């Protein structure tokens, strides 16, 4: 490995880091001799966890006092680059806040950003991999010029693997005055509750799309997911149409899932959707259009009307329960 230092932006969540943050930490230490974490909010309390996943230093941006994270976190990183020097790259999870941190940091440091990354390697510098055209091609890219390069990595690109290291050394990294840019404040948070396993963690995901015909038919998706102890998902089309909450969306701008079985019901298979589920171990597709792109990646394809097949499937599963 010839990379000397990578910084990983690790998003705090419920007393830990998000899973994608841990994936990035696990991968970073295989690429670079030194890994540091940049985090906020829970800061020092996560030093042991950061160390366990291979970070030697934890840069603590501190309490954001309700501000959206992007501006203060990017300001803190930019200030660190000026102080301790630039790492080879800053790795950032592809999440709502992660993407914003990357954009802010890129413009602030005048450094390029590469997004939608699903693989990293080292070959005289960091090499990023990007799936394009619905995942049919993989583009490999590199930064030129002065670092740090800024890399936004998609969820589930790497396995989580603990290194068992000592707690990271905590270094305060305050953002300083963020001016007018830093005035966006969170005034309330709303959680859209759902029962059963989490969409990203379920062994079975049953997703519905426009082919269901109307919002009330989504109840069939929920019932099958329940019968299979899985989670219900959705295509962007029916989320945009307001049939189901956004938290159900699988795809480019939604969640990335890799279950044992993914059952796509009435989903044609837009690139947008396939990027979020094509890593599933097994894919079942039910769609009345025999030419739907989803069939090109399905292990089992049923050409038929979901409004006939799904009720029969519900009956069959109930008979076994």
């Amino acid at each position, binding site marked *: 490995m010839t990379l000397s230092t990578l910084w990983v932006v690790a998003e705090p969540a419920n007393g830990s880091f998000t899973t994608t943050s841990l994936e990035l930490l696990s991968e970073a230490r295989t690429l670079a001799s030194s890994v540091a974490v940049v985090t906020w909010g829970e800061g020092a309390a996560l030093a042991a966890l950061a160390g366990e996943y291979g970070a030697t230093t934890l840069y603590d941006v501190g309490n954001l006092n309700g501000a959206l994270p992007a501006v203060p976190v990017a300001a803190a990183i930019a200030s660190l680059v000026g102080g301790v020097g630039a790492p080879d790259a800053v790795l950032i999870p592809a999440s709502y806040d992660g993407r914003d941190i990357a954009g802010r940091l890129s413009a602030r440091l005048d450094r390029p950003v590469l997004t939608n990354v699903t693989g990293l390697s080292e070959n005289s510098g960091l090499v990023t991999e990007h799936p394009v055209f619905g995942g049919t091609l993989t583009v490999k890219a590199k930064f030129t010029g002065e670092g740090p390069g800024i890399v936004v990595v998609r969820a589930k690109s790497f396995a989580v693997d603990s290194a068992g290291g000592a707690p990271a050394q905590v270094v305060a990294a305050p953002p300083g005055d963020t001016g007018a840019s830093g005035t966006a404040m969170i005034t309330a948070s709303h959680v*859209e509750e759902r029962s059963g396993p989490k969409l990203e963690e379920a062994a079975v995901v049953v997703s519905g799309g426009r082919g269901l015909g109307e919002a009330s038919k989504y109840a069939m998706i929920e019932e099958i997911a329940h019968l299979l102890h899985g989670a219900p998902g959705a295509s962007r089309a029916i989320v945009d149409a307001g049939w189901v909450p956004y938290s159900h969306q699988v795809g480019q701008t939604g969640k990335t899932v890799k279950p044992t079985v993914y059952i796509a019901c009435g989903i044609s298979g837009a690139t947008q959707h396939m990027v979020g589920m094509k890593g599933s171990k097994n894919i079942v597709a039910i769609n009345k259009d025999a030419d739907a792109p989803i069939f090109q990646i399905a292990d*089992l394809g049923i050409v038929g009307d979901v409004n006939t097949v799904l009720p029969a499937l519900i009956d069959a599963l109930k008979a076994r329960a």
Partner: protein
Amino acid sequence: MNIVVCAKQIPDPAAPQSFDSSNNLDRSGKLILDEADTYGVEMALQLADQSGGGEVTVVSMGSGADVAGLRNALAMGATKAVIVSDESLRGTDALGTAKVLAAVIRRESFDLVLAATESSDGYTGTVPVQLAELLGLPSITFAKAVSVDGTTLKVSRQTEAGYDDVSAPLPALVTVTAGVVEPRYASFKGIMAAKSKPLEVLSVADLGLEGQVGPAGAREVVVDVEKAEARQAGEKYVDDGDGADKVVAFLESVKVL
């Protein structure tokens, strides 16, 4: 209230995509207004209306001379459009794009900048926030509802778990998701009116950004393009009333049942 909307003209997403010889997306065909941007245009028209009037300016950039997509935004009701159109823009990266848009928007008087969360062709998804940083504005991304109360912007912002209420003082930048509003169709009257609305075409030199755009300004290179390991299509059956049984048998074979 004056609003700037960032919009992109993209190759028709229904047509197959390919790279040109420089590994840039082939944009030689007909370009259309990115559907993702129609939500921003509609949101801008509604917010301007609710504030009692004001200008809606559409801002865009591209390497070709196509303006049909921008005429479409004008036909929906936008006041005017400005496009930076220059062959030297081919191969410009996200930060370069944000620099060009920032240079155009600095010439405008505005209270709010709207953009889509990401384009439907390149989907880098960082340009709006890079733009906000260059303009020194607060930004709220992934808006599923937007309102303005005096000089305060209020947004419902999507999160992993649900949504947050977020507020910021104007001027500010917001990215809107598809579904935030229902974009109107251009009326015949709108289409006719759009033909005489101002549409300014600028060059990179007009903005003094030579050398910061195109491949020279982009500090990343494509080192390889390879075919991804393809997922093989498995068995496909036409449902004869036995579709559900086939699904059950499959679930058994992979030990989910």
